[in-house]
């Protein structure tokens, strides 16, 4: 005699269909309440709907849990609703921002945007004239020069904190943190007072890149430090056991092992400064034509172009500003996603 019954394991942590139905009913009930209340009372607007819905939902949920499972779980249900409100308030702006930029910037996007500059046009011209080639190339040059300055310094700082571990590890950690809090306008004023007034006496892309690297170094240093800390100590020991000096071990074992992580650090650094506006406004002079030389002549850039178009305030120029923001946002998004993909691959392997 064999028992044909199949024993189904219970999964008490999963909600049953009945529980799901009840929570759906509570949700619907709260929506209905908000609709009725807003219609019946002088309240109006999206804000009123949202608030009434939230309070009604929390209240219904509380009552239901209180009746079926007691006060402790009812409180838990309220907490769940409140933290859900928190996260939705935190991410609501990003949704609105993305939607706004895409909807408003889309109108200003056309192909010649990427092949012409604003040498012959003003920002109030119809949108299909002129472009932002000068701004894109300028931002690329600024970022490149800033990278050349800040990558060595940032990575040396990280290597000092993880490999050399000298006397100053704690103070330098503190200083890097302090440096990441330097307001961007102060970095701009500093380059103005230390570089432009005493030395060059003219705006240039290089001055802008100097200010940007001040903002970039802490980002690169901190991310690289985190990456280097993840390299297993076995690798270092193996390098030293093979007779390598510390210099050889770091240069041929540790840094190559952390290569993709260091690239991530660079990408995050670029994303940090690509849209930085205040120092660019103060230092680069913002030309309207393509300028490939960072050491002389005004240099355009995306933030400057956006700022200038926004400040003029005509319909065309504002559309231009949104188109510029869309381009900038796409650049930042691509950088961010690639950094994320790379770090994900690293943690998997």
């Amino acid at each position: 005699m064999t028992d044909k019954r199949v024993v189904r394991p219970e999964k008490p942590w999963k909600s049953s269909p009945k529980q799901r139905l009840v929570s759906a009913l509570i949700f619907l009930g709260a929506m209905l309440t908000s609709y009725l209340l807003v219609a019946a009372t002088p309240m109006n607007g999206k804000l009123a709907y949202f608030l009434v819905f939230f309070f009604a939902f929390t209240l219904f949920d509380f009552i239901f849990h209180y009746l079926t499972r007691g006060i402790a779980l009812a409180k838990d249900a309220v907490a769940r609703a409140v933290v859900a409100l928190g996260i939705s308030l935190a991410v609501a702006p990003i949704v609105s921002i993305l939607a706004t930029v895409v909807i408003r910037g889309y109108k200003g996007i056309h192909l010649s945007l990427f092949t012409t500059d604003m040498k012959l046009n003003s920002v109030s011209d119809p949108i299909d004239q002129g472009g932002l080639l000068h701004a894109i190339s300028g931002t690329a040059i600024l970022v490149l020069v800033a990278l050349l300055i800040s990558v060595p310094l940032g990575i040396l700082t990280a290597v000092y904190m993880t490999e050399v571990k000298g006397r100053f590890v704690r103070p330098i950690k503190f200083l890097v943190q302090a440096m990441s809090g330097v307001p961007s306008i102060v970095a701009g004023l500093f380059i103005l007072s230390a570089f432009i007034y005493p030395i060059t006496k003219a705006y240039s892309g290089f001055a802008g890149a100097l200010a940007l690297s001040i903002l970039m170094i802490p980002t690169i240093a901190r991310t690289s430090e985190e990456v280097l800390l993840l390299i297993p100590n076995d690798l270092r020991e193996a390098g030293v056991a093979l007779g390598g000096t510390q210099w050889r071990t770091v240069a041929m074992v540790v840094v190559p092992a952390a290569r993709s992580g260091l690239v991530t650090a660079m990408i995050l650094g670029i994303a940090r400064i690509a849209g930085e506006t205040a120092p660019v406004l103060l230092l680069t002079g913002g030309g309207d034509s393509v300028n490939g030389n960072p050491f002389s002549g005004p240099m355009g850039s995306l933030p400057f172009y956006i700022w200038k178009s926004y400040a003029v305030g005509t319909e065309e120029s504002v559309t231009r500003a949104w188109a510029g923001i869309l381009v900038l946002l796409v650049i930042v998004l691509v950088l961010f996603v690639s950094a994320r993909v790379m770090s994900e691959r690293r943690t998997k392997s």
Partner: protein
Amino acid sequence: MILPASSQLPAKREITTKPRLSDRVFAWIVTSGALSSLLILGLIFFFLTYQGFSVLRSQGLHFITGSNWQVILDAAGNIDPKQTEFGIAAMLVGTILCALIAIVIALPISVLAALFLNFFAPPSVKKIMVAVVDLMAAFPSILFGLWGFFVLMPSAEYWAKLINRYLGFIPFFQVEPPIYTRSPFIAGLVLAIMVIPIITSIAREVFNQTPLDRIQAAYALGATRWAMIRAVVLPYGRSGVIGGAMLGLGRAMGETVAVYTVLNVVYQINWHVLLGAGGNVASMILLKFGEAGPDEIKALMAAGLVLFLLTLAVNSLADLIVRRSGGKGR
């Protein structure tokens, strides 16, 4: 057999703990690279002081306590040092006020969001949300500025009117004359949106450090999730969250472009947060920079120095608090 003389053996290697020349050079280069942060911060302080010194000396303490900013030229077109006044009190007060509004709004939202991400969200939701919040931290500030000006400001004005109507008896919320545009409240809202991702990620890190055994002990005693959070997570993470909020405060005080677009800079100390008149050191620098003559630029440098020292102080304190409570800081 006796081994031949030592000449046939390789010379004994000297065993030493002294680092070789290559290592000494390496350590030296790395150390000097790492000290660049000290050098840069020192240079910032030095040059801003150097440029702003004449203004700071002629204005004295009045530079921080006065609220007038007027450049009076004499007949020859030079600056008249007797009548010219540079005072940034209104700007300083405005900076702190906007940043405080931002923190008051952002802190509860961030803590709740961090709690959701760490303890309530299913893994798939958590992964997406964390990426979204981190992405928001990478948005350029000019984006927040334009969005705040074109999209948020109309709604925020309406909210300000509601607050004024129902809470207007509180002196803070009085608005006289009724101008609601470009108020510190709206600037604070934009700043809040900018610092929410920063505070959220620090709060998440701090909450992550909660010892697992205590969490499990709370559950084993029959606590619900909320009871566990209240009994274990919040007490454990409190100081870290406070430090994170201060880091956000420092960031909010130094923000330039986003505030510039949504704040009406007025040279008068204003505590009425809904009234469309505020101050901000960074915005003021940007505003005045365009038309400033050489002496006014010096005054702007001095204002930059004050802003630098202010954010440095707030940041360092915050860093100290965050580090002591186990978070890594941002």
